[in-house]
């Protein structure tokens, strides 16, 4: 894959699981009857004896994964992000995070793009919920390159990890030498009028906005922040102190996710002007996802407008 290719992160997730499974015999994959969608099914084809089809029973799936982790296996338990956060919240908190078990949780179809399934299948609060659980690491990678690296990083991490993967095609923005590290952000574009902090599939939109803003005479720093817990406080404080005007852009509710996490750091460490772009505390709906990004004020034009406003 090369920069600019359109690849769905979920596909990168499935491919990475297979690659990981080849080198690590302790990796097992659990599915709740959505593997053909999340792409964890690729692992079943490669390693059927290490793939556990749990049926439409997410609570049991996460409990089984916890039990497997107690014997030293590295389970990847995968379903849609909406079911991770809403349905299995208690199991993830008590059976996985509280005993610090090394279960890797994949929340696929995060945010708006779900195949037009609508509100019931659009997780806008999964990052907020997972971030609030002690011991949990929370990652929303952007492109296929980063998703692959995040799968390997999650497996190497001793504790529980929540890894969100997008359904739709996302432009590849990282080259093959990109190094992913849990908790570390990246400045993808330098600028000093406004800082745009993004993750998930919003980072390519933030980069597009940065290019448009440059033509408009506004210099935007684009910070990609794939890990929202632990969050890269230094990068946020640095942007606050050198620029003082920050926009967060997330495929999620503005409550409790990237915007919430950045707001907390700013409020405590270095107050700065902040605008949060994201879903503004409402349920989703069916429809073309780009149309919904526009409707909810989350498209490239919205980022540009917010940046022009705050940079003025």
């Amino acid at each position, binding site marked *: 894959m090369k920069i600019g290719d359109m690849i769905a992160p979920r596909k990168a997730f499935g491919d990475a699981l297979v690659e990981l499974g080849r080198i690590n015999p302790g990796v*097992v994959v659990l599915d709740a009857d959505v593997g053909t969608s999340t792409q964890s099914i690729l692992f079943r084809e490669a390693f059927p*004896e*290490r793939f*556990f089809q*749990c*049926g439409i*029973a997410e*609570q*049991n*799936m*996460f*409990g*089984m*994964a*916890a*039990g*497997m*982790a*107690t*014997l*030293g*296996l590295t*389970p990847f338990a995968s379903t849609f992000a909406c079911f991770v956060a809403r349905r299995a919240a*208690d*199991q993830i*908190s*008590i*059976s996985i995070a*509280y*005993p*610090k078990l090394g279960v890797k949780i994949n929340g696929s179809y995060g945010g708006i793009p779900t195949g037009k399934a609508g509100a019931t299948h659009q997780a806008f609060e999964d990052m907020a919920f997972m971030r609030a659980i002690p011991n949990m690491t929370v990652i929303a990678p952007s492109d296929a390159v980063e998703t692959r690296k995040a799968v390997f990083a999650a497996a190497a991490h001793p504790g529980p990890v929540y890894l969100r993967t997008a359904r739709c095609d996302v432009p590849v923005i990282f080259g093959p030498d990109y190094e992913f590290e849990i908790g570390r952000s990246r400045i993808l574009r330098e600028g000093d009028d406004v800082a745009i902090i993004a993750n998930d599939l919003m980072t390519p939109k933030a980069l597009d906005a940065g290019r448009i803003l440059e033509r408009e005479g506004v210099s935007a720093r684009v910070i990609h922040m794939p890990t929202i817990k632990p969050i890269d406080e230094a990068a946020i404080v640095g942007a606050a102190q050198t620029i003082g005007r920050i926009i967060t852009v997330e495929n999620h509710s503005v409550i409790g996710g990237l915007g919430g996490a950045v707001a907390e750091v700013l409020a405590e460490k270095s107050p700065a002007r902040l605008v949060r772009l994201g879903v503004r505390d409402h349920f989703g709906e069916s429809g073309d996802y780009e149309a919904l990004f526009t409707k909810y004020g989350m498209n490239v034009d919205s980022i540009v407008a917010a940046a022009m406003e705050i940079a003025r």
Partner: protein
Amino acid sequence: MSAEAQTCPALDAKELDRLRGLCRQARIDLLRSIANAGAGHTGGAMSLVEIVTALYFRVMRVDPARPDWPERDRFILSKGHSSPGLYAALAARGYFPKERLSEFDVAGGMLQGHPDMLKTPGIDMSTGSLGQGLSVGIGMALAGRLKGLNVRVFVLAGDGEMQEGQVWEAAMYAGFHKVSRLVLIVDCNSIQLTGRTDETLSLAPLAGKLEAFGWRCVECDGHDLADLVPALERAVAVEDGPVCVIARTEKGHGVSFIANRVEWHAKAPTPEQLAQAIAELEGAK
């Protein structure tokens, strides 16, 4: 074969006497720890005393000196609120000194209100939110099989706990996939927090439900060690599917004024009640 897979003495009158003595002492110890804390789930802790004693002193292959031994049998107290009964058994078995039972429910102590595998030696899984233990037990049994370890898993649930939906997701999985070396023990003490289980949300017919899910079920007297021990040993020897041991018990068993009373679900004895209970238990020798 490890030294811990030892041959137990025959389950004769002498051995039964020994086990009964351990149970009597466990009830005294758990009541003391609850009274010391001024909090704890007395009734359910007392109903499972024979079950955990049978497991830790007869049935399970464990080594208290090596609580992390990879091939040990696993135990999950899915009804985690009954922890004082488990702690008393673990202390008696030598996982930690009995004096440490006084740390139960004490801030900074080793013994949490609900079992914490990161704080207490011998606890194989943290529990407390009801309904979660069986799923974890299935994961352990499957992981043991995948890793080629002869791990056998025992999950102890309450009868009220069987009202949780997750239990039935797990039961469906274990039955359909014939997960063996997995024993679910249901401590059927017939009482839950607000009332009698049959009046709250009846599970009847519990065996029939589980059998429909692909399980074998055996019923036994959960306080009669001569009945309970062989039932557990036979259950874990079944190689082609999961087995449920439905243990008929009495909540608060062993002390006249605690036994079979709804109000003792989560009440701690006063110092006077503790003294009276200990006198009763010691008098029963």
